[in-house]
């Protein structure tokens, strides 16, 4: 079922600032993409914290993601294996 923007207005309100996204796109494109030949790429960044220039997590192509999603959904339906990597909590105290 599709979720409309009304269902999570906070995130959409902030992210739908298209000017900010265009600027974010521009900075990510120019400074985080593009072919690197060699030469020197200056690291100094002025006022860059105004926008997101994230060190992002690559989640891969659709084909790779489909396999990862299948695994994740299997984990979510089988609670115990999914929790295997989560911290084990000690029992509540009866103070």
């Amino acid at each position, binding site marked *: 079922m*599709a*979720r409309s*923007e009304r*269902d*999570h207005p*906070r*995130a*959409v309100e*902030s*992210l*739908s600032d298209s000017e900010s*996204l*265009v*600027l974010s*796109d*521009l*900075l990510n*494109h*120019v*400074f985080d*993409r*593009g*072919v*690197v*030949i*060699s*030469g*020197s*790429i*200056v690291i100094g*960044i*002025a*006022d*860059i914290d*105004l926008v*997101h220039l*994230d060190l*992002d997590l*690559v*989640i*891969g*192509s*659709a084909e790779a*993601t*489909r396999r*990862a*999603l299948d695994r*994740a*959904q299997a*984990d*979510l339906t089988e609670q115990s294996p999914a929790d295997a*990597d*989560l*911290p*084990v*909590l*000690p029992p*509540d*105290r009866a*103070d």
Partner: protein
Amino acid sequence: MPTYLYCLLIAPTDAAAEVPRGLTGVGGEDVRRLDVDGLAAWVGTVGSRARSRSVEAARGHDRVLRAALDLGVTPLPARGGQVFAGDAACLAELASKAGALRAALERVAGCVEMTVHVALGPQSVGAEEAGGGSGRSTITGQQAAGEPPASVDRSGRQYLAKVRERLRLERNVQVEAASALLAIHAGVEALVRGESSMLHPGPQPRLTIAHLIARDDPARYREALAAVRIAHASIVHIGGPHPPYSFTELADG
């Protein structure tokens, strides 16, 4: 004088690879063309000021790339801020990678890049805030009801519960992102020649997807996206057409 590299084109076949008259670069310098091994490199001679990473420098770099795109050819974008000691050093580096660069140019020929920004579900927003080290105990209602006094378990059980919840919610964001990626991929698959995606897991998690499509297809691409429905997420912005910044990976060797 330092030479700043903007982009590359295939010299012999891109008759339009001539730099438009009056085109200026990141430092206000004239953009010019260097030829090496069948490649045309658009470069400028810059001073030290042009080397800094700034919004103005990004705009200047992108302006040159778009000028190339507007000529009807698809440039291979160089990473912003790449400066060589001079033309000779730039040409030497390009010559050493000419084969891989030509292959990369062939992969993007006739294409442009489109970007899709997707806002992911709101439950992850609260999660990141809770896990962000603010010290506020806002993880879950379940924990609030059953948690022991803070003075007892503040650095033990409560910490582990916080870590556990953060990991669960991070996983939820990844699953939502994967679902969104698959839904969008299915919607535009017929138009897409390349794809890459990034998950931004911050306080307002979002997914950015880049697609390589034919130059004539942006309108059809936007129409196709308008029909895509995603559970627990919304497309909030579609950008492009851009030069193919996200599709510049060079083959080994």
